[in-house]
């Protein structure tokens, strides 16, 4: 019994020493990890606005950082919806190693086209978006750590403050006064199309190229091959960004 008790005491002391050593060295090692730089770059391609985040990480500690995952989510605050999510995985950053994690966050308008309410908000309203950035990892094989941060910023709409004035009718032509400002970094082409009550096209306008930051205010003429004014119709605005086309109803005519 005495030997068993002594052995148990030795085992308990050894386990306490192991726990204390692991914990103290892990805390000390964790203080040696440094984020040497965070480089954020914005970009705009076709229908996509994105941010590229490059995080340079130096692991000066004694233990490896494993299962490093950088995740980001973008939420629309006006209609609480997740509009973008992306994830970057880095298998391991060993002790004494330096690693650059490149994480790309894309906000593609074409991917959101299925939700008309969301696309309408993003195209026509300068609205607040919330970005949640999460970095998670396993440290020293036993500690799971997660770092969260979030930032709210104002989204610049491609057709911010869109206004359709009173439509006037001429011989075979309707004139639509339209004004908006392109507050987005996107370059696009747009045109108007008039559809009848059944959705058949009655006529289209010319195409207009809208560079970023431009104010557009003009009467747009649509040549119509049918009775004017039509008994019932819908005015559709088509936006072409690269190869992506987005169509939104901007006005209704008749009942």
């Amino acid at each position, binding site marked *: 019994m*005495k030997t068993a008790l002594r052995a148990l005491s030795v085992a308990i002391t050894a386990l306490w020493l192991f726990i204390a050593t692991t914990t103290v060295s892990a805390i000390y090692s964790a203080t040696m990890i440094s984020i040497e730089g965070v480089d954020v770059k914005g970009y705009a391609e076709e229908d996509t606005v994105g941010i590229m985040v490059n995080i340079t990480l130096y692991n000066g500690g004694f233990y490896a950082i494993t299962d490093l995952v950088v995740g980001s989510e973008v939420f629309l605050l006006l209609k609480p919806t997740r509009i973008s999510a992306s994830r970057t995985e880095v298998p391991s950053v060993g002790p004494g190693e330096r690693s650059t994690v490149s994480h790309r966050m894309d906000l593609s308008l074409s991917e959101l086209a299925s939700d008309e309410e969301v696309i309408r908000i993003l195209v026509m309203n300068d609205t607040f978006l919330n970005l949640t950035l999460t970095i998670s990892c396993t440290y020293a094989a036993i500690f799971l750590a997660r770092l969260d941060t979030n930032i709210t910023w104002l989204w610049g709409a491609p057709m911010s403050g869109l206004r359709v004035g009173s439509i006037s009718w001429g011989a075979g032509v309707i004139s639509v006064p339209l004004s908006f400002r392109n507050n987005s970094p996107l370059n696009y082409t747009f045109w108007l199309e008039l559809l009848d009550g059944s959705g058949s096209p009655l006529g289209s306008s010319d195409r207009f190229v809208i560079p970023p930051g431009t104010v557009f205010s003009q009467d747009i003429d649509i040549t119509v091959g049918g009775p004017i004014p039509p008994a019932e119709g819908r005015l559709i605005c088509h936006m072409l960004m690269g190869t992506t086309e987005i169509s939104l109803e901007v006005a209704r005519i008749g009942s």
Partner: protein
Amino acid sequence: MGARELAKKIVDRVIRAIIHGVLLYFLVYRIPLILLSSLEEGIAGEMAFGGPDPRTMITYMAIIVIFYAVAIQLTRDTVLEHVFSVGKDLTLIFFFIYSMGGGVMEIDIPGITGFPLPLKLTVDLGFLLTMIICVELLGVGRSIMRAIYSLSEEAEEAT
């Protein structure tokens, strides 16, 4: 046992209790506080802990450890020594669960160099907490075994 022997035994226990108390005061209270202060000089000083404050936790830990160490030394060679020993291990189990937020610690960091946004750090200490609880339970088992052993020895001596 004569009065002189009894007095000697009591003095011996009191001296042992004082030595243990003073040693533990430095080991469990003063040294951790110095280490914490040096950590607080860096970024840790601006961190806000979601759970209990680390300074308060060190104080509570020191109170528990010193109280039980002194009590164990004062009741040395009696069954109460083992009762206090089991009590210490059980108290420490609950203390560790409470101080580690049940295994998940949340820390608010106001920002780091090159990244000015406020950050929230969540550390899952579940594995460490499990290890600590297992070792404490081993300690409880050892104390019970010691109590049984000393009682059986006393019974043997009596017969």
